[in-house]
């Protein structure tokens, strides 16, 4: 089945960059899960909103930096609103109810986009110059691939420092280990949660910028499939902790980028089936390492 794989350097670079972007999304989803025990299915719609902001800015002929500022503003405001209107009232409900609720939010945002911009979508071409290839020792590699990897790496390092070295980061760590105890010891719940949600929104903004360069056509279902794949990757890696979640996100992005680019069409059309079959298999073989805390809570 996989006999005719030919991997080129372009392939490898593209797969790495998709992995890097998925890793960022995984962190964004993992941060919120850490403090809220909530799987944010609507994360992709945050990215979609940011992408539409970029597309509008391009349409209005704004300079690139202004478009990016608008993108971040839109995503952050939306994250904040989501926390205030949906996450906060739902705090403490069962994970299933919260997951369905974010499903509803995702559906809602997608249809707002559909009403507003139509199904055909818009082109976000502001930073499209990054889509040009660089020739590195005879191999053409798209600039955006390298930029994505570098930007994602920087974001992850910065995040790591933030979580390890600052008070609010420490609070977040404590909250994701045991929220009740953390609160008793003086961690302010609303502040930590809002901070985590905004941080995750910030990452969604970064992802929106990187993804629109790779794929400038922004439609209402932009990043929807990516979110589903990232969610699967996050579950694979282990949702409770940021590092395994990030690695899971990277791995599934890398695998899907590599196989999607390398397999001939008549096989790559079944890529989704293989990916999700692998996800189900891993979930079955290693359920203990995944969702350990949630399972323990359910069992008692």
């Amino acid at each position: 089945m996989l006999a005719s794989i030919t991997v080129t350097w372009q392939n490898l670079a593209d797969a790495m960059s998709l992995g890097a972007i998925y890793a960022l999304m995984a962190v964004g989803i993992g941060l919120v899960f850490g403090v809220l025990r909530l799987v944010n299915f609507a994360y992709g719609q945050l990215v979609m909103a940011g992408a539409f902001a970029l597309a509008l800015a391009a349409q209005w002929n704004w300079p690139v930096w202004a478009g990016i500022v608008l993108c971040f503003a839109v995503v952050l405001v939306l994250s904040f609103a989501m926390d205030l209107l949906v996450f906060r009232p739902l705090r403490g409900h069962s994970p299933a109810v919260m997951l369905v609720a974010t499903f509803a939010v995702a559906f809602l945002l997608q249809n707002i986009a559909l009403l507003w911009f139509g199904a055909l979508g818009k082109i976000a071409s502001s930073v499209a110059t990054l889509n040009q290839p660089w020739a590195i020792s005879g191999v053409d590699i798209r600039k955006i691939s390298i930029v994505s990897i570098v930007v994602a790496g920087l974001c992850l390092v910065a995040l790591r420092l933030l979580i390890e070295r600052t008070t609010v980061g420490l609070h977040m760590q404590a909250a994701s280990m045991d929220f009740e105890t953390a609160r008793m010891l003086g961690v302010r719940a609303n502040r930590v949660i809002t901070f985590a949600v905004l941080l995750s929104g910030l990452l969604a903004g970064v992802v929106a910028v990187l993804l629109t360069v790779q794929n400038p056509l922004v439609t209402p279902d932009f990043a929807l499939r990516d979110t589903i794949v990232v969610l699967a990757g996050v579950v694979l890696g282990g949702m409770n902790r940021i590092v395994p979640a990030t690695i899971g996100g990277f791995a599934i992005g890398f695998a899907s980028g590599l196989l999607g680019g390398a397999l001939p069409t008549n096989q790559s059309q079944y890529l989704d089936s293989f990916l999700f079959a692998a996800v189900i298999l891993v979930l079955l073989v290693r359920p203990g390492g995944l969702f350990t805390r949630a399972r323990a809570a359910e069992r008692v």
Partner: protein
Amino acid sequence: MRRVLGLQGLLGPVTLVVVAALAGTLVSASNQSYFTDTLVNVSIVTALYVFIGNSGVLSFGHISFVAIGAWTAGVLSVPASEKPATMPDLIHFLRTTTTGNLTSLALAAVAGGVCALVVALPLMRLSGLAAGIATFGVLEITHNVLQYENRIGPGLNTFSSVPETTGLRQAAIGAVLVIAVAWAYGRSRFGRLLRASREDSAAARAVGISVYRQRLIAFGVSGALAGFAGGLEVHMLPVNTESLYLDLTFITLAMLVVGGASSLWGAVVGALAVSALDSYLAVAENGTSLFGWQINLPSGTRELVVGALMAFVLIVRPGGLTGGREFRLPRLRRGPAA
């Protein structure tokens, strides 16, 4: 625990379905399709309820079995003369076999049930979010395979020339049947054991209930009902892989949750209420008048309103409209305990 699912638990939902069907006979032929569609939705949501409601485990995968049922019934009932033109790559057996309406529906239920059982064998070991993601994987795989496998169906094309036998009557009879099966399952030993495990998994295990086996049975039954509902659907309108995918998953889950996931009454009320709203908005998108006001909503409003409603109900009333209670006539309630 309160006594659930007496005979009233059956009669309440059935009465609602019959009233909806009778109301459907009073409107114009073009609007009648909304009522038919609503009744098929009742079947799908009731099928979802059998597993999700009784077990308390979320499944995003049930639309797979609706799709499998639709594919089974659809492929088998397209007239043999049409098959070479619309589905040239069908395997020999499917190309040469054509069944009648009822047989195709029965086979749709069988296909849905068998597939659900096979999937459930490994999957029912999982619970919580892991189960949610895994069932999502099942949906993705089914969608992906049906999309590209031309040997078992139309692939990316839309089904054509399936006899349109699902009118108001067939949809109503189908919905009543599905409700009756769901009710009987809920009353049975299996339904009770599974609900016990939903209420307190540890206690259920302690008294010797195999949660795995009970979930397996419920998944199989609800898969069969979902397959049957898929058969009804394909006999109602031309479907394709996209119409049996994420949007339908979302809207049916919304109906279940809005109504109240843990009761049959909730499933039926939710399906009827959300479908009614959805249909009304669909009519309003084409222009209608309400109390003399001319209403002309832009297309896309219905999904918007339904999404907002679902989020709202979840936030304000996580138990759903019915609070997860079964239907019961207020008068027949026993007097206060002495």
